[in-house]
Every structure is written in structure tokens, then in C-alpha cells.
């Protein structure tokens, strides 16, 4: 690792989230660097999505803190503020704006002034148009751009959401199961895409598809019962007895 000029991009410290006594996150600590890609694996219910909820302000932790860029305490900000700091998210189940066309979905996600007044006066520029075109091309939805997003098939919605995430140009991308419902080929393509992005930004990917994780070729964190079970290169982690036992199976 090179000398960090700035502190780590995201630092979760001792985060605990409990629901009526059930600890979904248990003193979880995690650090993500600038332009780092991290794959997170772990059994169903390990707390991966909950962790993203904490980072994006959807869930308030009972304990612990989440620092972004060393100065923003995410636990005290709301969703919109966090998004404006530059944290974007793709949800586990694809959520898009059903009544909007595919291209409007992307357009809404484009990095821009988010205040109502500027929205009222905003005019679409040529560069914006190009960007939308490029993004649609990238997620292979150009042919569907005028259709309502609600009419897309499951996998198409996944792609659309990835497109929206890219449109936001966030500093940190949280990607929850991007490959679910994609063919093997598409999965590989997604991996390419993410690797590409990770050159300039930080990416946190949650996925159960080991081929995909292998393709990413990055540091892997395995969560279990709300805390880190193992961390390191995939080969190391997947050789861990506990990981095999609770997650990979024999």
C-alpha cells in the first residue's frame, strides 16, 4: 500500500446494529481506501446488506461510528446528504423508477445540482446527453431507452441500476449482488466493468458468486454473524475452515 495522503475513505468502527435484541451487525470494523475495491462475502443474513444500510444512512447503528473521508460522520447524516457526499448504491433487489423511462432513470441519477430550484430551471446540455447515451450503451439498454423501467425483465433492471449508479459518479460505490440473475457471460462482463471503475473510485461489492469474486481479483472480507470472520485474498479466505463450514460448504 502506498503512503495514504488522506485518511482511509471509509472507516467503520465497531458498528453494532440490533433489531429487537438480534444483532445483525456485531462490533463490525472495516476500512476501505481510496480507489480500493473490496469484495464482501458471507452467509445469508451475515449482515452485508445491513452494513450498506448503515453506510448509506438507511439504518442508524446502535453503537459505533462510520467515518467518510476522515471527517464526515455518516451516522449523523441522512440518506440524501450521504449520497451527496459521493456514496452511491445498488440495491440487492433492483429498485428503479417504474413509471419513468429507462433514459429518465439514468438522467435522474446523473451527477447534477440536486436542489429543487435548479431542477426547475435545469436544461439538458449536450454533454449530459452524450453521457446518458454512453451509459445506456454500456449497460446494453439503448434499445430499451424509451420503455418504462417497470416493464424491464429482472436482469435488465439489474443492469439499469448499475447504469444509474455509474451516472452518479460517486466516490464510493456500494454494489449489492450485481451478478444475481445474470448469465455467466454477463457476470464476467460486470466484473470487467467494476474493475474498470475501481481504477478511479472505491468499490465495495457483495456477491455470492465465487467465480465472479475470483474474476474481480481483490481483497475479500468474509462476514459472519455481523462481524468479520476472515479477510485477505480469495484463495486464503476460501481455504479458511470456518469460511468453508459456514459459507462455502463442502
Amino acid at each position: 500500500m502506498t503512503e495514504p495522503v488522506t485518511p482511509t475513505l471509509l472507516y467503520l468502527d465497531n458498528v453494532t446494529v440490533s433489531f429487537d435484541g438480534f444483532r445483525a451487525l456485531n462490533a463490525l470494523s472495516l476500512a476501505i481506501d481510496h480507489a480500493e475495491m473490496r469484495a464482501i462475502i458471507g452467509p445469508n443474513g451475515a449482515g452485508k446488506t445491513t452494513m450498506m444500510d448503515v453506510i448509506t444512512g438507511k439504518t442508524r447503528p446502535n453503537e459505533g461510528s462510520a467515518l467518510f473521508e476522515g471527517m464526515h460522520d455518516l451516522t449523523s447524516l441522512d440518506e440524501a446528504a450521504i449520497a451527496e457526499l459521493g456514496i452511491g448504491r445498488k440495491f440487492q433487489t433492483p429498485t428503479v423508477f417504474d413509471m419513468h423511462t429507462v433514459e429518465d432513470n439514468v438522467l435522474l441519477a446523473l451527477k447534477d445540482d440536486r436542489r429543487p430550484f435548479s431542477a426547475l430551471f435545469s436544461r439538458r446540455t449536450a454533454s449530459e446527453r452524450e453521457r446518458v447515451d454512453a451509459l445506456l450503451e454500456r449497460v446494453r439498454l439503448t434499445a430499451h431507452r424509451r420503455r418504462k423501467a417497470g416493464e424491464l425483465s429482472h436482469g435488465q433492471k439489474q443492469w439499469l441500476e448499475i447504469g444509474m449508479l455509474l451516472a452518479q459518479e460517486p466516490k464510493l460505490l456500494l454494489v449489492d449482488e450485481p451478478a444475481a440473475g445474470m448469465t455467466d457471460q454477463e457476470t464476467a462482463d460486470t466484473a470487467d466493468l467494476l474493475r474498470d471503475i475501481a481504477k478511479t473510485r472505491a468499490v465495495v461489492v457483495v456477491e455470492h458468486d465465487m467465480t465472479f469474486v475470483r474474476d474481480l481479483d481483490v481483497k475479500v472480507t468474509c462476514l459472519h454473524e455481523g462481524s468479520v470472520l476472515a479477510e485477505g485474498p480469495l484463495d486464503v479466505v476460501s481455504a479458511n475452515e470456518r469460511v468453508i463450514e459456514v459459507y462455502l460448504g463442502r
Partner: protein
Amino acid sequence: MTMLSIENLTLHYGAAQALRGVSVSAAIGEVTCVLGRNGVGKTSLLRAIAGQKPITCGAIQFDGCDISQLKPFERAALGIAYVPQGREIFPLLTVRENLETGFATLKRGERKIPEEVFELFPVLKSMLGRRGGDLSGGQQQQLAIGRALVTKPRLLVLDEPTEGIQPSIIKDIGRAIAYLRDRKDMAILLVEQYFDFARELADRFVVMERGEIVQNGDRSALEGDDVRQRLAI
């Protein structure tokens, strides 16, 4: 014995056609696998079978009878169980209640959650009192499969059941499907994108493209690169 046989099925969303003359069949004691890229119409086919989407024309025969005009609950009563894509569990019902919705087709005396559901998905047992919507994505998927099993189906229709599930449980699900197949009392129709998983289970398969069946065959045909090629972009 053929449990389900579909002839020449056509289906529209408004003016847009999603299925064009699809013919598939599924036999008891076999797993029939439907493969295809995103948006080719796999889910639409399953919705047509479950009765959630009216078909434009074509025939759906179940156990020798035409069911294409029946309501979803009538099909369920005949023994069709559906695990939809996107889980579609009842978010505000508890896990137990979600499972109990499967009792609707059963006689009063049979209304018990089969042990095999908990054997397959132990996590459900520990979370019986939790609301379905609070579960993690993978847990919800397990619940959706479990819920389908409660109805004691004769035809099990699964839409990408492995989506979002951890590897060890995918293996379990694979074993479970094989076990159910080998019990020889139900037909299984499986939509799957995860090729290796499909290859291991499928007795027969069809590949869809743009709402049509472009290839079909039995397990041996899956071994070659041919099918893989078709699924590539």
C-alpha cells in the same frame, strides 16, 4: 409421464409480444431446465404456467387437462407451486405465517409444515417469528422455496432459485431438487442462469431467445460448448 405440456404458447404485454409459440413439457421425476439471457421471456413463461399472466393463445395441459383458463389458486389447488423471481414473500407476515399460506390448498388434517423444509433451510426454523420482509435477501429466497414446498406440489416451478443464496446452500438446494426429482412424485421446471447449477440438475433443457425456443435437448447436449455459446452475448 408428462405432467405439464405447453403447446405453441403466445403471450403479450400490451402490444409487445414476450412469448412466440413456445412449446415445452415437463415430466414427473425429471428436471426440465429453461435457459436464456436476460429478457428473453423465461419469467413470462413461468407466469403463464402459474396463471399470473393471461396468455394470448396456445395450450397449457396439466396432468392431461387444459388449465390455461384457470385462476392461479385453482392451479395451485391442482398442485402447481411457484417460486417466483424476486422472492415475493409476504413482507408483513412472519416466517411462520408465510409458510402457512401454503395450507390453503391442503386438507385440514394435512396442515403441517413438512420437516424437510427446516432440514433444507435450518435458518427458517430459528426465525419463525420474524417478519418476512425483515429477512436478508438470501433468507427470503429460502423462504420462498420452503413456502412452495409446503403446498405438497406435483409440479414445482422455480425461477432462478439460487439468486442471492450463499454457495453452501446452493449446493443444498441442488441436492434437494435432485432428491425431490428422485422421489418421482413431482415434475420440476427450473429457470436458471447459473449454468453449472443447471447442468448438474437438468434432465432436459430448452434454450430461449427473444421469446422463442431455439434449442432443446437432454442432459448430454449441455456438456458441449454449444449451449454456453448461445447464452453468451
